[in-house]
């Protein structure tokens, strides 16, 4: 079996297991149900698209149009279509991730195996699984960004001549348009294509880059000038700030006349979150737990494994920088990917300026795993280039680091379990809450939709987290 095939088998197993969890999870009522009712009420996909164009703060017409398209496609089989689509996206994400990695030797395969556990074990990955509105658009954007990355890597990162070159450039443009009109973080497609081009990965040609840049300019003109959509305000939602969670009114009171302080905090918090798994959603949860004397093993596991991996990355970057100064060494493909990863992290964090949320920074989490591949690969090469002692130290360090990340990755299933339990219970309580709030549908069609979805959720077998061994929540969190 080739090294790439071995990694693909591992990726296939991990992806299938997560897809199975997703399949067992009911469609969530919070956020998703209103969207589904809107989709039911809308006469067509085009109408849904048009209605979403004129909204304020956000320009996401394809998000709404997709929900409607899947709704029409489902013909009442909501779980099959929405959960099936979610599972399909996660399989696509993991496959595209592996596809982007240069795996040509057992050493590459070992680095890729560790990177897979980083991808699936990082806390931002959970944002791809837990939330669905009823489509997980954060996951969708990550898949589209990985498509763009794979396009830049096509033909060995060299532009193709003739119609194939045109096709790749066109695909890059379509990917950008689709992503940008789905979520704001879709503009990361441009970041990936532009950075990859500058780093020497030019599967998308200069012509393609110009085309996508023109589309980016068009997006800004459409959003800020023609439609005057604007940006989200301070008072849209609660947000973490150091050790406290602030309500919109508190945010307005504290940062109303100096919003840039809050925005700067969010950008820095987002970067730290990816690099150190702390803060989470803008809140320093592990620090708060430590101050309160109630730190679970999960907090140590996440923060220390992230800290160790980030130190490995910093060491690799320093080693590359030193080598490039001494020998004018050229950067390999994994080094170029690492450069793209750093820029995506910065850009994704900048896009999180309005509020820090793990889901928004999730694309950067995927690129953190790509950087982990490059770094682990470099460390293994370093280990091979020395004597017995160096090899022994690297082996022990890699075993410890790999074990910590494998442990984190295995926790995904536990978290999904807990989330499924909470979601199913939300459905049980939904009619009571909605009737009390006067939101319960009076018309037969929407009522049948809500009751149908509730029946599906209640009929799904979900284990009670209180009946599983306590060590799981201690080590995996929730």
């Amino acid at each position, binding site marked *: 079996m080739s090294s790439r095939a071995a990694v693909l088998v591992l990726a296939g197993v991990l992806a299938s297991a997560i897809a*199975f*969890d997703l399949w067992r999870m009911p469609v969530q009522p919070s956020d998703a149900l209103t969207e589904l009712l809107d989709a039911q009420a809308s006469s067509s996909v085009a109408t849904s698209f048009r209605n979403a164009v004129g909204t304020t703060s956000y320009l996401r017409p394809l998000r709404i149009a997709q929900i409607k398209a899947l709704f029409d496609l489902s013909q009442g089989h909501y779980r099959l279509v929405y959960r099936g689509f979610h599972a399909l996206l996660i399989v696509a994400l993991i496959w595209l991730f592996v596809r982007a990695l240069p795996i040509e030797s057992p050493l590459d395969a070992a680095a890729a195996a560790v990177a897979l556990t980083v991808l699936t074990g990082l806390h931002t990955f959970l944002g791809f699984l837990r939330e669905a509105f009823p489509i997980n658009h954060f996951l969708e954007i990550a898949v589209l960004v990985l498509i763009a990355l794979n396009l830049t890597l096509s033909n060995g990162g060299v532009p193709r001549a003739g119609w194939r070159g045109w096709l790749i450039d066109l695909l890059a443009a379509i990917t950008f348009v689709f992503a940008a009109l789905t979520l704001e973080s879709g503009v990361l497609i441009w970041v990936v294509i532009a950075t990859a081009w500058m780093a020497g990965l030019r599967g998308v040609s200069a012509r393609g880059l110009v085309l996508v840049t023109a589309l980016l300019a068009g997006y800004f003109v459409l959003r800020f000038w023609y439609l005057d959509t604007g940006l989200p305000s301070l008072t849209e939602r609660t947000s973490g700030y150091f050790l406290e969670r602030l309500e919109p009114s508190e945010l307005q009171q504290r940062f109303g006349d100096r919003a840039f302080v809050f925005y700067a905090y969010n950008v820095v918090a987002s970067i730290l979150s990816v690099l150190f798994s702390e803060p989470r959603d803008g809140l320093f949860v592990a620090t708060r737990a430590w101050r309160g004397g109630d730190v679970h093993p999960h907090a140590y596991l996440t923060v220390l494994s992230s800290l160790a991996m980030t130190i490995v990355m910093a060491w690799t970057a320093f080693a590359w920088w030193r080598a490039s100064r001494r020998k004018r060494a050229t950067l390999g493909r994994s080094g170029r990917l690492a450069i793209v990863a750093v820029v995506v992290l910065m850009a994704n964090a900048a896009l999180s300026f309005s509020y820090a949320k793990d889901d928004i920074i999730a694309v950067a989490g995927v690129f953190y795993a790509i950087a982990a591949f490059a770094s682990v690969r470099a460390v*293994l090469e370093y280990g091979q280039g020395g004597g017995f002692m160096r090899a022994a130290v690297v082996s022990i360090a890699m075993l410890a680091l*790999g074990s910590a990340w494998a442990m984190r990755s295995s926790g995904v299933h536990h978290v999904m379990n807990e989330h499924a339990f909470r979601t199913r219970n939300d459905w049980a309580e939904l009619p009571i809450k909605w009737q009390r709030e006067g939101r319960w549908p009076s018309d037969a069609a929407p009522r049948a939709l809500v009751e149908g979805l509730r029946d599906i959720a209640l009929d799904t077998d*979900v284990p009670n987290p209180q009946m599983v061994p306590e060590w799981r929540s201690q080590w995996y969190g929730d």
Partner: protein
Amino acid sequence: MIAAAALPAAYLGVLTAGMLLRAVVGTHPLWRVEPVNLSEAAALRDPATVVRLIRRGEDPYQRREVRADLLFNDRAELTPLEAAIASGRPEVAEVILWSAPRPEPAVWQQLRCLAQLEEDEDMGEVLDRYKPESAVLECSGVTRPWK
């Protein structure tokens, strides 16, 4: 060295593959559901299972065994609403009351007094919303049915 780096991920892959194989035959280790009765579901804060069992025709006012260590160290005989009160879950109590016929005045009185004994104001509010018309609140002599 390469083996040391790859070993944890490979081990995870083998364990996950085993989990998937068990899922095919319906015994996924993480999605295995332990059967519970209506009172246990209420005690374990599982309103979805509560609704499902009531829909299947189980009597929400009947006492059932709650196994030792689920709610108390010892086993107990409780109705689902008593279990919800004992575990301090007003949302579970509300789901039961919303899904089931209204309680008899005497039953309601017993439950309301238990909520009072537990000093659970939220629970009291939930029970007050489902108060039978002829019920009165008289708690002398009411004691907890659990130790």
